[in-house]
């Protein structure tokens, strides 16, 4: 799955080895945004082996926050079942909101490897 960023939704790339999101997330209807992402993940992410989740978010609203809980819950279950999941939470050095959001999500994760990564330069994939 590959979906370019919009004003209200991030860039999304999902394949068998990696899931990547860059940008902002505050869709008008969170259901419309989240359903295809979750169904893709369910069909694509393998049960064994390794998988990387790269996230670099600038903003998400409270509805999206609930989506991300589901998102991480999915990977937590996968990791518990034997998939080696590595989550990279990228945040800009100035962005304490995203840092804290990352900390929040990270606290709930036990089976996944979670890393907070401070980025300074724009990351390789442009969200725009």
């Amino acid at each position: 799955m590959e979906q370019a960023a919009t004003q209200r939704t991030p860039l999304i790339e999902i394949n068998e080895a990696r899931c990547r999101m860059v940008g902002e997330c505050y869709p008008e209807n969170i259901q419309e945004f989240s359903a295809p992402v979750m169904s893709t993940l369910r069909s694509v992410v393998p049960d064994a082996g390794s998988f990387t989740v790269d996230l670099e978010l600038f903003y998400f609203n409270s509805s999206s926050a609930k989506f991300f809980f589901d998102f991480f819950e999915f990977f937590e279950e996968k990791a518990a079942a034997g998939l080696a999941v590595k989550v990279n939470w990228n945040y800009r050095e100035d962005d304490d909101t995203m840092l804290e959001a990352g900390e929040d999500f990270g606290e709930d994760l036990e089976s996944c490897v979670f890393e907070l990564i401070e980025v300074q330069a724009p990351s390789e994939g442009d969200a725009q």
Partner: protein
Amino acid sequence: MSIRNKLLALLITGFSVLLTIFYVSNQTLNNASQKFTSDSLAQTYSAAWLSASDAQFERSVEQFDPELGAPEITRLWDPFENAFDDSGDSNPLIAALESDRPDLARSYFDTLFADAVDLEEISFVMAYTTTGRQVYCLSGLFLHGADPCGKSARPDFFLSFDSFLRDAIQRPTRNIVRITDITGDKPLSINDSLAFGVLNADEEAVALVVVGKNLVDNLELFSEDFEVRLAVRSNGNSISLDDYYDDDGSDSTEYGVANLRKLVARGSQMAEESSDATFSEVITDLGVSITSIPLSYQATAEEISLLIFKDQSESIGQQQQTTFNTNASVVATVIMVVGVILGLIWGAFGQIRVAIDVLRGMAQGDLNLEMPERSRILASDKDEVGRLSGAIDQYREQLLEAEEQRVDRSRRRVERDNLMFEKMEILASELEGGAKDLMLEDIEHMRSEVESGDDAAKERASIELMGVAFSRMSDEVSSLINARTEELVRTRDEIDSSIRYAARLQNALLPKQYPGDISFKVHWRPRDLVGGDIYFVHSLPDRVYIAVVDCTGHGVPGAFLSIIARSVLERAIDEREIQNAGDYLSKAHGLVMETLSQQDNSNEKIDEGFDGGVCIYHRKERRLEFAGAKSSLFWVNDKGAEEVKGDRKSVGSSRSGGAFQFNTHVIDNPQGAFVMLTDGITDVMSAEDRPIAFGRRRVLRTLQNSPQATPEGLVSNVMKSVDLYRGGAPYRDDLTLLAFSINGGADEVITPDVEEV
């Protein structure tokens, strides 16, 4: 004059000049070469003749020279020797001459000369006394011309006998002696002769002897050797060898030379006219060259010269043939070159004329004309005419294509016009009265317009038709739109007024009164007219509840939820029991779960609820308690600003668990000011491509840097920072910013100070 004719004229003129130059120079060259040939011919003849006659002279006459002659003869002239007989020591011949005894002398002369004359070694011998009397004369039997010893013979030296004698006595002298027959019966006799005196012992001349050899033999030899015919020209008279023979020879064509008499006359004339007696000329019409050379060193050429006639018909023929060949080949070459050039010019200009016709035809619209195929030799697609031809064909193809396009355009225009008429007719059928008549009139008028005139006129008419059709249709459509718009505006106004009414209702839920011992300043701003943010102040005698909450969603759904939230916040207050902030928020959580899940029969998670913070100020204890659901309390005092963080759970979220217990944060004897806010503040994004949220840290910094730690000062400062940070970017969410400070005064009620947007 066309360019073709100019070129032709130029070509012909040019070649004429070239030919003329060629002819003149060729002629000059020929003359020069002829002159050279003639001169060398004259010199050759001259050298040959003179050496031949010298040789004969030595062989014949000179042997009698008293000084240079043969020794047995010179002895006979010696006065001191008698070489004749035994009659004494003195020379008997000289003695006989001295004693004037010609009769005696004659026998001695005979001894001397008779054999030579008989053998024709010499032609004659004459002896004279010094007074001019002939004492001896002997001539041969076979003579040519006048007999020297005849009675009618007149030797030329008679005319100047004295000087002749003087010269001869002085030393032996070689002469040409011409002897004329005064009767005219015999032709002139021309002789190479030696004259000398006979000297006695006293060196005195006693007689003059002239020994001669007729030149005819020599001339005949020469004639044979050189295959020429000859004539001698002497003192204006000419004499040919033929004159010495009986047949007059006028019909002879010996050595290819005919008409000798005529030639001799011509030669004589030329000799008279010529300044030089030595000359040679080819008489082309007679086929003969006439050459004149001196007959002898001893006589001038004016006096006597030899005319040589040589048949030149062969070399003249050859020369004429060569000249003809040269001229013919030059002319043929010129004609061929001119012909080829003419052909090229003709061909090229013919093609150009065809091209002109084709172009003219095309200009008049005849596109069927084509350039003819060029199949001739030397014709190529690469030459000028070929390229012209190619360009014209290309142009023609473009015209054809343009014509095709024009036809296609015209066809499409007709289709378009028909569509227009069809649509206008449909429109007309829907109209009534005057409008319908006007439309039908338009249709009829435009029909006649688009069907008359040329292409351009039709095109103009068609465009006009489109304009008219569009104008009519847009008139109708705009009246239709006007009607629809009115309807839409009415609907919109209705919705707007509903929402405005909802906003008034939501506003009514906000606190209208504040307790007098606490100062408040609130900035409340739903993103739309209504929103999910709400704040709440409830004062009991012993405590005051202050809450700022952000319900999930915004706009109308948020507003609905905010009503529930407000109701829950009110219901969660336990007026009789001591209630801390955590308990209070936990209770609210339970109530929300209860309220919303009871109404939903499905098993789906319900995540609706709110984030927010609650403060309870216990007046008597002067204690401020805080509990937060994903919210913080900011405290600004003398020491600066600090953040009191709430729990990371939302109220009403099933994730928080049905019986989640929120923590209570306690601040005793609270000094300074306190700030509560919703994420509408912290989530304000910078106006960049990759924006960063304002965040709690910036809130904290702004609060720290605020000069006045009063509710008004803090609210105004934070909003200023937020607006600055946001730049031109729009608000994304409802936002609420509430600041309060506890004054510790009487429990009085004051009017609210709320910024409502």
